């Protein structure tokens, strides 16, 4: 019989657990009465919306231009709404990569290292910041080799789409992973930038929410819940408000 976890690992882990148990701190549970252990301003407010003009925190100017161009092919401007670049998707991704997301602080990055299953999510040691840096460089190189030295932003929309299709099919490697992995990462992050709250840098003027009819960060629908089948046309609300909050 084969065990998915080698016996030696299991025994080692068990021994470590026993060692931990002996040093666990005494419970810090406390009975509280007469007051609430909470203060109104204790929480950390969400980040402030990026200032204009935006100064890139992670991307170089060339990287930023490339990501903007990619965002505009993933969500092109049309008669319904603005495109991914104008919506600030590159700004959104830049802020994310410069922060905790880029450093992978919410991922377990210690051993043991084994290939995982797709169901187990990303199974890589590279941070998202590293993936972007390597991925964009690989993309620049691949584009130059395919289009006699031309940059992605200089290509026609059709050529850009064709290159992205190749990337989606895993035509080259971005660092240790096939280009399809980076492509999916780009799709995911551009979508997030288009639809996340504008305080994170994308979704300019709540364009993404207006496109969907999403009413934003509202707390309460009791006064409209009875109006079934009716188009409500609620102006979306960001965490930092909406234009209607300002006295004209």
């Amino acid at each position, binding site marked *: 019989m084969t065990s998915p976890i080698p016996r030696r690992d299991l025994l080692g882990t068990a021994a470590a657990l026993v060692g931990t148990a002996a040093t666990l701190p005494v419970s810090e549970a406390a009975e509280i*009465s007469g007051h609430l252990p909470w203060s109104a*301003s204790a929480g950390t407010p969400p980040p402030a919306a990026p200032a204009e003009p935006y100064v890139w925190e992670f991307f170089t100017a060339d990287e930023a231009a490339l990501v903007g161009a990619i965002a505009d092919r993933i969500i092109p401007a049309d008669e319904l709404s603005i495109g991914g670049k104008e919506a600030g998707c590159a700004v959104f991704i830049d802020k994310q990569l410069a922060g905790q997301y880029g450093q992978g602080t919410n991922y377990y990055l210690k051993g043991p290292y084994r290939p995982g299953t797709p169901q187990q999510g990303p199974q890589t040691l590279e941070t998202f910041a590293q993936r972007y840096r390597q991925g964009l460089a690989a993309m620049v190189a691949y584009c130059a080799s395919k289009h006699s030295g031309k940059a992605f932003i200089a290509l026609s929309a059709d050529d850009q789409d064709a290159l992205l299709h190749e990337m989606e099919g895993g035509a080259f490697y971005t660092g240790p992973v096939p280009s399809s992995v980076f492509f999916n990462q780009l799709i995911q992050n551009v979508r997030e930038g288009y639809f996340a709250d504008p305080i994170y840098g994308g979704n300019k003027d709540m364009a993404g929410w207006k496109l969907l009819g999403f009413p934003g960060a*509202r*707390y309460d629908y009791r006064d409209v819940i009875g109006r079934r089948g009716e188009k409500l046309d609620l102006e979306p609300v960001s965490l930092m408000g909406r234009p*209607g909050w300002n006295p004209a």
Partner: protein
Amino acid sequence: MFTFRRIALLVIALAVLGCLGAGGLYAFNRVTYANQIAETTVPAPTADQIKRGHYLALAGDCVACHTAPGGAPYAGGLQLNTGFGIVAASNITPDRDTGIGGWTTKQFILAMHRGIGDHGKRLYPAMPYTAYAKVSDADLTDIKAYLDTLPPVNHAVIANQMPFPFNIRLMMIGWNMLFFDFGGAEYKADPTQTAEWNRGAYLVQGLEHCSTCHTTKNFLGADEAGKFLHGTDLDGWWAPDLTSNTRIGLGSWSEDDIVTFLKTGANDRMVAAGPMAEAVTNSTQHLTVPDLHAMAVYLKSIPASDDTGLTPVPPTDPQMVAGRAIYGDNCAACHVLNATGVPGMAPAFVLSPSVQAQNPENMIRTILAGGHVAVTETNPTGAAMPAFDWKLSDAQIAAVTTYLRNSWGNAAGPVTADQVAAKRQQIGARERN
């Protein structure tokens, strides 16, 4: 013709006379004090007396001022900002060196009734002897009996931290002559009123010392004549009008509304927050319902303060339009779009005295920094209001406050962004993101 010399002589003469007078006053003070506190044997207090004393000490809310934040109860140290300087509340545990362990009951009564402390030292009226003067000798004797049962805590407090000239305690003799001596006397029952009314008046004017916060003050910090419980600013909070004024006072509250508010910290219309939350938590929740009802009966009998009719700001005003949008998106989840609130939790704003108060500072500061409803035995998980300082600009808070003050039957002056900016700075709230 006046010469320089004659003027100088006159000044010196006046100074000498002044010194003699002050010295005489001081000596007289010491002698009379010794006479005033001389005491023969006092019978040991009964258990019942101590229990009554405990109840009365809670009614007087002694603990509120005589306890430093995080300090031992009644051991003093809380710094009170009087507007003239800092006075720290004294240690009133029975410690003989730093508390009042060596005090006789007579000595205690003299301090409570006349504001005369140890060795004839004049107390500052931050200690509300002007109200405690109404309290009977019997009740004060019981309070002293209770305080004597507390564990003595050795905690020396430097009470007088006032700047010159207010640090001269003898000045209080003059202050008392002006504002206290002719009015400050034990409560005399009004024979034309019911026993319940008289009990309520005794509590409101005496131990509960409501006027300390709720009565308009003159430039020397004394209660302004004819403004009893008309509301006033207290260190950045508005202590509201408690008269029968229907717009800004208690005129639209029933007696039961008042009782429920004082007993539980909230009622169907309003919640106690800020300094009043402390008053409810530390003091009024512990009073019996009959005592609270007596207070309500008395409060409801206080004639309404003057109030001129106000025209509400029209709903088309830009502040009102923006205020309505802000209210719907941020406030309505708890306070409800038609402003009926959640009873006992989120205040209602319909025909609301607190919303229409002469000074909107409580609303401004609560929107900025959030707040807590009083925690009581009946309402142990007092609700909380989140802070909006990070989210709303001064102009937006001014707009929503103006909207509240002029909707659902309310009519009160609009609020400016400058008022909000000043309050943001005063209470150290965060800037908007």
